[in-house]
């Protein structure tokens, strides 16, 4: 079954790509927080990507990815009308969505796209969603309009102050937590240091904090244990126990180290790819 790319857009030229992919079975079943594992060609590796949106009527899912290495660079070369070889999913436990007065969804960089789907889930459950998004500058912000379409507020932080607050999302988050006592949960998706910082900020407020871990995976279906992480002192598998966990219980230092375990191989692969293309 071909997984055809029905729409492709450079969200940030040369860096971040959005693809709408024909995958009716996955679109029907996908819930916020789920991810897919895909493979670009028959020499390719299996890579996990969070589902940023779905359209069951059209039978499509949306993925957004940052070009960081060979596999994502290769994926980015595919054009509208071309097929992705393998798309497997929906994987992972969906986001646990409870009725809340208000929820803050924090997204950083490419994580904003993944956060979007979860924010939408909270919105559909009737929760008031405050979106807090951040990037280095205003040109690197994603999904502002999409989030604005259902979130009463989209708060922005940029490193250079080109839009919104000059500084980090955590500063915006802390201020809001101090002012808004209705916030019952914080969800954070983005780079590991950002999620770790968010968890640190929310801790003194005693607010439930959910983070989505982007561990290295191979099969994504609970077979290999590559994605294991330590949560509350216990080994958990991000692919079947997660990918979302209690941000106050995750060992982020270990996660960072494990994410870097194939850095040399990844660089070798990417360098060779760039030299050829």
């Amino acid at each position, binding site marked *: *079954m071909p997984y055809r790319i029905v729409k492709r857009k450079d969200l940030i030229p040369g860096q971040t790509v959005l693809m709408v992919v024909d995958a009716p*079975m*996955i679109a029907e*079943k996908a819930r916020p927080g789920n991810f897919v594992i895909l*493979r670009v060609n028959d*020499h*390719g*590796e*299996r890579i996990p990507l969070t589902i940023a949106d779905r359209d069951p009527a059209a039978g499509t899912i949306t993925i957004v990815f940052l070009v960081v290495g*060979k*596999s994502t660079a290769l994926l980015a070369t595919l054009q509208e009308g071309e097929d992705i*070889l*393998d*798309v*497997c*999913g*929906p*994987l992972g436990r969906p986001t646990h969505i409870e009725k809340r007065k208000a929820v803050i969804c924090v997204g950083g960089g490419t994580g904003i796209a993944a956060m979007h789907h979860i924010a939408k889930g909270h919105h559909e459950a009737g929760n008031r969603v405050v979106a807090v998004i951040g990037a280095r500058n205003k040109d690197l912000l994603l999904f502002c309009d999409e989030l604005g379409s259902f979130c009463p507020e989209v708060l922005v932080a940029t490193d250079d102050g080109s839009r919104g607050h000059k500084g980090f999302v955590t500063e915006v988050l802390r201020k809001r937590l101090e002012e808004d006592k209705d916030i019952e949960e914080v969800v954070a998706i983005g780079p590991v240091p950002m999620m770790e910082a968010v968890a640190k900020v929310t801790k003194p407020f005693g607010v439930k904090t959910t983070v989505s871990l982007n561990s290295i995976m*191979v*099969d994504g*279906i*609970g*077979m*290999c*244990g*590559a994605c*294991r*992480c*330590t949560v509350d002192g216990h*080994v958990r*598998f991000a692919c*079947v126990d997660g990918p979302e966990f209690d941000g106050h219980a995750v060992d982020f230092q*270990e996660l960072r*180290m*494990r994410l*870097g*375990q*194939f850095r040399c*191989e*990844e660089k*070798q*692969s990417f360098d*060779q790819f760039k030299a050829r293309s």
Partner: protein
Amino acid sequence: MNEKTKTPKKPKTPRTPMPEQPPFVRARNFLEVTLGYAAEQAALEASRCLQCKTPLCRKGCPVEIDIPGFIARLRAGDRDGAYAVLRQTNSLPAVCGRVCPQEVQCEGSCILGKKGEPVAIGRLERYVADSFAAENGCMQLTGQATCSLPREIRVACIGSGPSSLTVAGYLSALGVKVTVFEALHELGGVLIYGIPEFRLPKDVVRREVDAMRALGVEFKTNWVGGRTILVRELLDQGFDAVFIGVGAGLPRFMDIPGESLIGVYSANEYLTRVNLGRAYAFPEYDTPVTRGRHVAVFGGGNVAMDAARTALRLGAESVHIVYRRTKGEMPARREELEHALEEGVKLEILANPLRYNGDENRRLVSVTLERQKLGEPDASGRRSPAPTGETFDLPIDTAIIAIGTRPNPILLESTPELKLSKRGYIEVDPETGETSIPGVYAGGDIVTGAATVISAMGAGRRAARSIAGKFIGEDAVR
């Protein structure tokens, strides 16, 4: 004992040795270790069979292959007939000839084994399957649909490992329309991601799968049972029966310090990267794996042997298998252990890991082991190890943990109606393989916990027979 008073009744012909790549050559390549019999060797070995009236070998086979029957045809020069006999009960003869633990099954029951060496049944099975396929290409004998069925019968298999392939092979030969749903991108389950190329070439698996395609079996990859498709949806879609053969799952860890250090792998991850991801050909293929210099594998089963021999082939300078009992208690197939030792794998027996030690970058540098001694036999009849308090460090940069698996939760959580055993596996009727959901059957590792390819096939056959009996009629059962 006076030797002269005994009449020597040794078989005249010794067991025909299997041609193999020399250990020093094969330890550095991923080509198949054993090369297979030539026609003359197969004929010679077949001639050793006594053609017992009440063959014990057949009772030793989980899928009850008519062993004297296929050997008799081989002896008569009827190789095609021999293949037909194999296919009557075994959908994957080329696989079984390679990976079955024959020494505890057919060959372990062979009467010749009482005084000498048993007939090399596994090698003959492999010879028949391989030589038949070599001459008949894709047009392998796929069995005959007995008759057109009164109505279309559809069966879904979840997973494409040995148990599901057996169900598919058995039922499609009867004219049942079988659809196999596989979660990964390649078909064959453990035969693809688990067992290495040098022990079971992937082309052999592909050949068996192609033979089933020719019988009309439909295969769908990237379909995760319990996620992309649910069991009850399959029943709602009109499948008459569903067979669950999703295998085992979550690798076990020992819950000791340092297991998340970089360089510590589960055997499943290590083997999946190398076998399914072809990491041995990195960077031609994109999946990476650490090429460890000093490797330790923990465990004593076939998976441990596979991981250790894979590490050697990836260029390791030293590979130790660390096992808490002794060589005699290792559950691995004898041939795998012997092959591993010939290739240069070292054993560190009576040792158990206490902790993995890392450097400042959380990279593995050594493992601390504790010397064990053997105590009283445990429930499995094996003498159980007991700690001595004596510890020592083994410097390693790669650790591969091969101590078994736990049930994969994906399908089980999405199918809460399924009754599970105390250990968390699916409970089935031992006669029929049927689960607590009528029309839903299960077999293989998701029922028994980690076991062998052939026992999964036996379970598949049992389920296929009861499905055939229920939906086609007792006449269809063979």
